[in-house]
């Protein structure tokens, strides 16, 4: 149904009854690098979901007899300043990263889609107003802006969701807006209107499904960005607070023991790099599969 509105010539390439998604999945499966990304992401999600089964210790269990122990068979990745098992903390930290990634993206996707669709569909003054807000938010270097919001709201994981959502919706809004502008003049929109659909139905039942490809790409890439941003905020002491095992704050805590216990900060950093890399590889692959016209960058 996605191609009803387009020229016939474009339909030819795709087999009958094959949806855009199935076609994209086929392309994605052929892309080895993207599949590596997908596997990395699935492992990450599995670790987060089954954290209590994987972690050998309670991540917050303090053991003052084994402070700053180096990696060994009892403590695979060593222990921190309170004698807590770092492997268990990193495993549980994946839950923080996963929830940040998803919740922040859901927030920014919701606000961004609503704002972007209104701006793109109505144009004119509505567009002007919304885009000025976007301009203003985007005038701030993103980390500085989230820092300001976090300082104003106070450091906590919930406020990280809000701060990052407030900053990142603008990017989704821009993408959705340009997709809506491209689509609103198309014949299928005229047809939907002629059939008596109201604006709301046209926007969300007819145009939005045609904009899903760039939204999904931005969602995947956005998870990587959100995880990285949360890590940066926690590293600066503005994210989740002790004893929550956020990867960024573990790195921050370990920094002062860099000389005596380099593993303390080393492993959580590898965990961040692994996770962000996974989502980036998957995002690259999705872009190639869903939207070959989009520029690789």
């Amino acid at each position: 149904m996605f191609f009803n509105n387009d020229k016939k010539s474009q339909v030819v390439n795709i087999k009958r009854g094959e949806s855009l998604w199935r076609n994209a999945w086929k392309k994605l499966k052929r892309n080895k690098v993207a599949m590596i990304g997908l596997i990395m992401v699935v492992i990450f999600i599995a670790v987060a979901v089954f954290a209590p089964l994987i972690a050998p210790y309670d991540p917050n269990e303090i053991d003052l007899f084994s402070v700053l122990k180096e990696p060994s068979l009892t403590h695979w990745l060593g222990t921190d300043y309170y004698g807590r098992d770092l492997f268990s903390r990193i495993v549980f930290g994946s839950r923080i990263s996963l929830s940040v990634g998803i919740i922040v993206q859901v927030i920014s996707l919701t606000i961004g889609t609503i704002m972007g669709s209104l701006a793109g569909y109505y144009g004119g003054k509505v567009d002007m107003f919304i885009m000025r807000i976007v301009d203003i938010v985007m005038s701030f270097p993103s980390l500085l802006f989230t820092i300001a919001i976090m300082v104003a709201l106070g450091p906590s994981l919930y406020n990280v969701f809000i701060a990052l959502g407030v900053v990142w919706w603008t990017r989704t809004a821009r993408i959705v807006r340009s997709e809506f502008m491209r689509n609103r003049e198309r014949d299928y929109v005229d047809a939907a209107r002629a059939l008596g659909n109201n604006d709301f139905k046209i926007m969300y039942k007819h145009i939005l499904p045609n904009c899903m490809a760039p939204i999904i790409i931005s969602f995947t890439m956005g998870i990587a960005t959100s995880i990285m941003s949360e890590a940066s905020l926690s590293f600066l002491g503005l994210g989740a607070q002790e004893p929550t095992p956020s990867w960024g704050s573990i790195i921050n805590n370990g920094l002062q023991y860099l000389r005596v216990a380099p593993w303390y900060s080393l492993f959580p950093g590898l965990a961040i790099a692994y996770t962000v890399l996974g989502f980036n590889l998957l995002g690259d692959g999705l872009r190639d599969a869903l939207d070959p016209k989009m520029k690789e960058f």
Partner: protein
Amino acid sequence: MTQYLIRRLLLIVPVLLGVMLLTFFLMYIVPGDPVLSMLGQHASDDNIARLREQLKLNRPWYVQLFSYLNRTIRGDLGKSYLTHLPVTEALSQKLPNTARLAVTAIVFSTIMGVSIGIISAVFQNTWIDHAAMTFALLFISTPIFWFGMVLIFFFSMTLGWFPISGMGDGSLKYLILPAFTLGSRSAAFLARYTRSVMLEVIREDYIRTARAKGVKEKLVVLKHALKNVLIPVSTVIGLNLASYLNGAVLTESIFAWPGFGRYVVEAIQKRDFQVIAGSVLVGAVIFVLFNLMVDMLYVALDPRIKYD
């Protein structure tokens, strides 16, 4: 061009006003009493009341907003609650240090990014290309504060080649690790972007013409293609400026580099709201002005683009 410039400058006014409003709003909703954090928990009621009056904190919000806008436009960003030093003065000392770090990082990331991108494109789909792009994606996925820490551990603590932190006497050895840290992520972005632009350019007709008339491949790449690659690439370098301001906060905090970013981080730790608000505002203004400059540069570099 002049008209375009004027229009762009006029458009900046509402954006900057919005930036100021937003900064004011954020500071207005700060929980707790800034006066208490200035005077400490044991301050007498008398002193608290006096300071509140002095800071106009007991006026209605619109009076506060007006006085905030009024003094901000005149370049007064308030004073640090703790050191009582004007924010503008502190920033004018810190920003040159950040500029020095950022410029070095930009030069490094441009040279690295553009050359790796071009090599990757020329050797498209060979192992060189794959290796370069894998490394680029690795760098993009690595948190820069962690990367800086790893560099400190290996090159400063273990090998002892570089000082661990600070700016010291300002010599080059202090600059290398932080600049490398700050530039690495941008270099990786730039490599990916340059590669994709190069792959497009190399399929253009004029490249085919150059090859057809027997120009050596080296010349085709370095003379004919490079020029056209550099135009979009130069804008991306400019637009990356935000990532340098963001990155400076993290890099300077790791390397104890006495610049803008470290100033912000110290203010966060001490909950010095005036300093944070002032710095964030200045960061946004720098960013907006640089974006304008980048747009101008774009016009200057590419005669095909005309604004009217």
